[in-house]
């Protein structure tokens, strides 16, 4: 059997026509469809037989710069996949049809395709594929390497996907990429896990950025953070120590659809891009959609408003993706950080009530210490307090939800500035903003580390003892 595939780039989408040809029986099966093109590394095998009646189109999509292929299994068929690390399987799940999938032409049958990284595979006609790929190469942007990636610029989503891939490939000993779920517009959500392999038991630090689309400095910070950790974990003792017992999970852009919308259409868009009221109204405020006193205060049931809480708690696929992931690991998550702008604030739970969580005092202390560390860098003032106290009442926020499911250190960071440029923070300020925020985050992580692995106190005792004994011996010489 020979499988031909033809691929064309149509804007942000790639369309693929698949022809499964059985030359002996002189039969041809054809199918086609389009997906948004993103890249991920996968070699996948299909678990369905060719004669399956349930149709599922598998699209191969080669990214121009790397040998990657994308499987848009989730949006078009009742099979959803969980992690994309190596061999990918289509697994049965319950009802995961997006509206995009529903619009797709009915399919003729099932196929299975092996990724291009797996040579031989099902014996598909490589020469034909290669010809098409050359055409593809001409259309899209030139190669960009990690060495020339600028952390002082804002990057569109396409580049951030690519960056994640490159990071994963360069730091393969500590970085893995995890699939969280699909956005409303069928884009994959990935987070990066940074973990030093060891026998030590690990606790988890979670950081997400870009839950509000227009807050561009936040995804910029997530990328900066990853870069700093990876460039320094070998030489920097502070970071090395953290990685001994902590794993970092970083989601650079949570509201991917919204973020892309701010690049293509409306720079000041905030919400997601889900469709409501028969396509007359768009977007849920994802930070009002979590299951924490959902829509009780500081949020709206009206889709027209910018604090629209959605049709129900965790109604949005983006919220669901993050919630499920965090829920599955909550026993081990000690710190939940969510990055926003603007306002220069470090916010504690809660927003939905002025009541304080049990560890409020500790959160204030750690927060204030972080704000001090931040100020020491470039003199910038960040204020610390609970959201209801120093900002305004809100419900359904990810930070409040994280605290309520038991994650002790849960903070929202509102990065620069104070309203001068607001959301449209100049690129010239990215570096300083990220450097100072880095100090704040590291300060929090140090405190978290101290709390759970208080090795430092033992070291302090030892060194104090040494000093004392030296002093004693010195005095005795007098």
């Amino acid at each position: 059997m020979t499988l031909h595939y033809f691929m064309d780039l149509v804007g942000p989408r790639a369309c693929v026509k698949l022809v499964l040809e059985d030359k002996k029986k002189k039969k041809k099966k054809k199918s086609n469809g389009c997906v948004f093109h993103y890249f991920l590394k996968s070699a996948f095998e299909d678990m369905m037989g060719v004669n399956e009646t349930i149709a599922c189109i598998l699209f191969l999509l080669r990214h121009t710069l790397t040998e990657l292929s994308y499987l848009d299994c989730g949006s078009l068929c009742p099979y959803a996949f969980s992690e994309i690390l190596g061999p990918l399987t289509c697994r049965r799940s319950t009802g995961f049809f997006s509206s995009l999938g529903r619009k797709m032409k009915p399919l003729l049958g099932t196929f299975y395709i092996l990724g291009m990284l797996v040579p031989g595979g099902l014996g598909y006609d490589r020469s034909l594929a290669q010809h098409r790929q050359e055409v593809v190469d001409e259309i899209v942007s030139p190669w960009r390497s990690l060495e020339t990636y600028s952390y002082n610029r804002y990057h569109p989503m396409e580049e951030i996907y690519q960056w994640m891939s490159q990071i994963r490939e360069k730091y393969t000993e500590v970085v893995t990429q995890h699939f969280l779920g699909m956005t409303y517009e069928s884009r994959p959500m990935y987070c990066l896990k940074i973990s030093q392999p060891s026998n030590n038991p690990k606790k988890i630090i979670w950081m997400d950025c870009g839950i509000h689309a227009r807050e561009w400095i936040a995804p910029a910070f997530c990328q900066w953070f990853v870069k700093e950790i990876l460039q320094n974990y070998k030489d920097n003792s502070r970071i090395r120590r953290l990685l001994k017992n902590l794993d970092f999970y970083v989601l650079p852009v949570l509201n991917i659809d919204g973020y892309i919308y701010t690049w293509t259409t409306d720079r000041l868009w905030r919400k997601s891009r889900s469709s409501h009221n028969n396509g007359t109204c768009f977007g849920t405020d994802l930070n009002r959609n979590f299951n924490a006193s959902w829509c009780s205060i500081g949020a709206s049931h009206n889709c027209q408003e910018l604090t629209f809480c959605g049709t129900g708690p965790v109604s949005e696929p983006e919220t669901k993706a993050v919630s499920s992931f965090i829920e599955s690991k909550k026993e081990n998550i000690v710190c939940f950080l969510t990055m926003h702008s603007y306002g220069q604030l470090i916010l504690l739970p809660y927003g939905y009530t002025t009541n304080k969580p049990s560890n409020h005092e500790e959160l204030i202390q750690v927060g204030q210490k972080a704000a001090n560390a931040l100020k020491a860098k470039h003199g910038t003032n960040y204020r610390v307090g609970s959201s209801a106290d120093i900002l305004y009442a809100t419900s359904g926020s990810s930070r409040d939800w994280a605290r309520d499911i038991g994650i002790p250190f849960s903070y929202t960071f509102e990065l620069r500035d104070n309203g001068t440029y607001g959301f449209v923070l100049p690129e010239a300020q990215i570096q300083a903003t990220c450097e100072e925020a880095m100090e704040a985050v590291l300060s929090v992580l140090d405190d978290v580390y101290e709390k759970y692995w208080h090795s430092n106190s033992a070291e302090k005792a030892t060194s104090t003892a040494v000093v004392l004994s030296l002093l004693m011996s010195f005095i005795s010489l007098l």
Partner: protein
Amino acid sequence: MQPLRQPLPASRRGNPLPAAPLLALLLLLALQEAAGAPAGSGGPEDSGWHQDTELPRRLLSQAARVALHFFNFRAGSPSALRMLAEVQESRAWINQKKERKVDLVFTTELYNPEEGNKRLGKCSARVFFRNEKPRPAVNVTCAQLIEKKKRHEKDYQLYKRMKQLQNPVDVVSIPDNHGHIDPSLKPIWDLAFLGSSYVMWEKTTQFLHYYMAQLSRVKQWKTNDDAIDFGYTVLLHEFSTQEIIPCHIHLVWYPGKPLKVKDHCQEPHTPEEASGTEEGSAVAPTELSNF
């Protein structure tokens, strides 16, 4: 709160007011009231006012900002615009009608600082919020940050640069989506910020406060008396609702003269723009304003 019966050093026009503690400010305002101050700026000795200990902290910086919007507008000087540094002292009162009075001492810095000059200037203000109504009454005094002569010079330079710009200015947005403002277009931003300060003051209530998010659609006209006559659309960000409000602003400015502003803002979630223009013109500086 008993006002002290002590003489206060008179503030002479042109001299910077010494950084006055809250007490002195209150006395000053009480004296002003005795001299027939505008209605509504009642001192603490008015019946019905009691101290507001539950004042939300955010209201303090909000009050400081709206006082600054008012100050910037009234100063009418695009090269000497100020932004909030820190609120240092505050006291608040509330009455049965849920109206709020906030007295503040705060520091400010220049929006366009000179090289290496990051001086802070102290301001004292009383802001009176009439429940949910906009246009809070503001009394504000600030210590001088730039010498008067220098400020006039800079304003005139800005004026000349504006005059030299192509007409109409063909610009999509300032700053661009990446936060860049071309240096040649900076005077437009400064002047727009000045005009927007009026509008932001005009719309601020106890519950709503604004920032200038982005500028779009700029158009400049010529006038007979050589003033800058220019119209633009500004996107205001309202913080508690997170809404973006487009406002069309038309201003007329000549260095040293009061700013004239006309504005027309779009109500959120309505298909058409809200009807009714508001016109505001600069009030001549009162005795209390020195800079």
